[in-house]
């Protein structure tokens, strides 16, 4: 079947999609977007996290046909331009929150969504929001640091735009 879905603001079409296929497979194998990772295919690891209609979901658990006409945002679409990282991406680099990097795309999408919703989340809120994303390398402390940093920067950037007349 054909699936049409808006990915990172662009209307995309995938052909010959198998009816039982996941959105993750369509993104990676048919639309050339391998940023979302495929690790467990059972919702346990979060490395395939994308935003669908604005909500973080596991792309491996969305049937491709369910994404028809929906808005999907992947890690490839977090940055605003080709030469500038999103605040949460910059913070992950600076804090050293990336080791092998396999969990990173999913964590970035989940963390980006948290900061957008919660502004300056508490540590408990960060842990709760990232509870569906597993990392086997970092021990999570650097990830916590990166999210705190990104949240603080985003909040102060918003303050200073409010200040400018």
């Amino acid at each position: 079947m054909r699936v049409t879905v808006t990915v990172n603001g662009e209307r995309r079409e995938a052909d010959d999609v198998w009816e039982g296929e996941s959105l993750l497979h369509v993104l990676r194998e048919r639309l050339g977007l391998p940023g979302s990772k495929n690790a467990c295919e059972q919702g346990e690891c979060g490395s395939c996290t994308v935003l669908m209609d604005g909500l973080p979901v596991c792309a491996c658990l969305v049937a491709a046909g369910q994404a028809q006409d929906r808005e999907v945002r992947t890690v490839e679409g977090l940055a605003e331009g080709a030469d500038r990282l999103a605040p949460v991406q910059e913070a992950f680099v600076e804090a050293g929150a990336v080791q092998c990097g396999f969990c990173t795309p999913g964590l970035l999408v989940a963390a980006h969504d948290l900061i957008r919703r919660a502004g300056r989340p508490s540590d408990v809120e960060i842990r709760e929001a990232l509870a569906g994303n597993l990392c086997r390398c970092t021990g999570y402390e650097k990830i916590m640091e990166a999210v705190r940093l990104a949240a603080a920067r985003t909040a102060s950037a918003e303050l200073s735009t409010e200040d400018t007349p």
Partner: protein
Amino acid sequence: MDFLRPASWAEALAVKAERPDAVPIAGGTDVMVELNFDHRRPPALLDLTRVAELAEWSERDGRVRLGAGVPYARIIAELGDRLPGLATAARTVGSPQIRNRGTVGGNLGAASPAGDAHPVLLATDAVVEVASTRGVRTVPAAEFYRGVKRNALEPDELIAAVHLDVARGPQQFAKVGTRNAMVIAVCAFGLALHPDRRRVGTGIGSAAPTPVRAPAAEDFLSAELTDAGLWASRRPLPDAVRRRFGELVAEAASPIDDVRGSAAYRRHALAVLARRTLGWAWDEYREGGWSACA
């Protein structure tokens, strides 16, 4: 495989009548795992996420009609005050990603003994609304679970909604697992105090082939609370009553040994969960806010 995509509830029922072999898919958090791992190759998927009616809830005359397709995240955000037990259980499901997609309809469809909605649906006397082109029928939650991962649906039927009373007393849910996020319960317990009816409701998860109530525990506690005038006096619960309640809950279970825990551990843990949730619920009742009787 066919991918069937009804746009309305009437169409969904018509499609299911025509294609009883089609597997409904709502949040997909159970169905997609089975597809990804080749555990299931149904001839057709019936996508319910375009049926707007399923994702709605409404309240009328003190009862909530919860559409089968309302995801857990919305139950937590929108129904925490009306359905505190179900919202508490919803908070323990999977992870944020799973709660954004997973639904009570899917929990009932899968009918796993470990489904976290079930203990609360049992404790609150929830009723499942089931429909087909032949008509609508209602099935009390206690009669909906028919065996390990089997439910009362006929092949042409879909789950439309769940009906629950707006809480008139404290409700609790607790589960035992190896960590906080993303665990299948080793065992779980749901409790609802119904001061208006002077009754107590219970539900046990993961400790029998299906989710079950603990009728002897309900009768015992209801009688203790009523006979000692505790609903009105709101005095502390005697320890012996809490302990006996826990024992009776554990006796209602018929757990097995498996990778998640032994039968003996499950029985023990259930008694503890029952005792604790009763303590929390009774403390909440004593603090007031809930009226004593109708």
